[in-house]
């Protein structure tokens, strides 16, 4: 009887040791190093979705109807460039305008609409260093709105804040070319639509 109890006790102690030792060891290590665990807010997909919904409503209330539909259907907004010398400081050809594709959390992609030539990527972020929920990333639609506001209000200042890279560094040129084709098709369809009214209700932007 005593032997059986002793054997059971040894097994129980061994199991507790096996399960508990890693945690105790980590706690001892932290204590020795004088560090404390920094509580990280849990990722809450519901909260992020609600934030994105609010951001979409705000974006919709700020940009034009065409831009909103473009974002909803294609997942990006085209913003026409306004600098006389062009986005890449090359003298603009006769009447040749340039534009940007504005994706959430991706570089601004400058291109020539007439030739679909990709000019470059302007890498810029809008990090919120207060990190209210552990992340400095704005919701996707807020990020697009920040880019849109900064571009339409003061393009030169935004470009000065960004890092310029050759096209293809972050945005796959094949994807960019495909998106430009999608944009052209989308505009054709929209032009054919009587009145140009919105075809769909409030839906998530395309990816």
């Amino acid at each position: 009887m005593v032997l059986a109890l002793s054997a059971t006790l040894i097994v129980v102690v061994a199991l507790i040791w096996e399960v508990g030792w890693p945690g105790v060891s980590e706690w001892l290590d932290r204590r020795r190093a004088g560090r404390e665990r920094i509580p990280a807010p849990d990722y809450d997909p519901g909260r992020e979705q609600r934030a994105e919904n609010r951001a979409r409503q705000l974006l919709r209330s700020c940009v034009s109807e065409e831009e909103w539909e473009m974002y909803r259907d294609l997942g990006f907004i085209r913003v026409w460039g306004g600098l006389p010398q062009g986005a890449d400081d090359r003298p603009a050809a006769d009447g040749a305008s340039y534009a940007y594709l504005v994706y959430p959390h991706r570089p601004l992609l400058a291109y020539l609409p007439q030739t679909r030539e990709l000019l470059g990527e302007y890498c810029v972020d809008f990090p919120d260093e207060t990190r209210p929920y552990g992340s400095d990333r704005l919701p996707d639609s807020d990020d697009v709105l920040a880019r849109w506001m900064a571009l339409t209000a003061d393009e030169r200042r935004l470009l000065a804040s960004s890092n310029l890279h050759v096209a293809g560094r972050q945005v796959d040129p094949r994807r960019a070319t495909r998106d430009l084709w999608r944009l052209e098709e989308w505009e054709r369809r929209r032009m054919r639509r009587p009145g140009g009214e919105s075809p769909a209700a409030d839906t998530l932007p395309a990816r």
Partner: protein
Amino acid sequence: MKPGHGEVLLAEGDVEVAEDEELLVAEFRRQIDAGMWAAVPIGSGAARREAVMVSSFEQVPRDAERVIFFPRAAGGS
């Protein structure tokens, strides 16, 4: 605009009412001092729209419906 939250109403009021204006100015300064950029969306309807960046309350058009604060731009990788 805030990560994990989206739009946050900071203050609202009528600029024609002195008390409201004081409140709006104080909040505007607080946001600018915190390093935020401020923009006022302009235009309405189906027409082309754009935004105006403002760095002081005096630059905000008197008929502006709202001022949107967002983190300032930083060069990404």
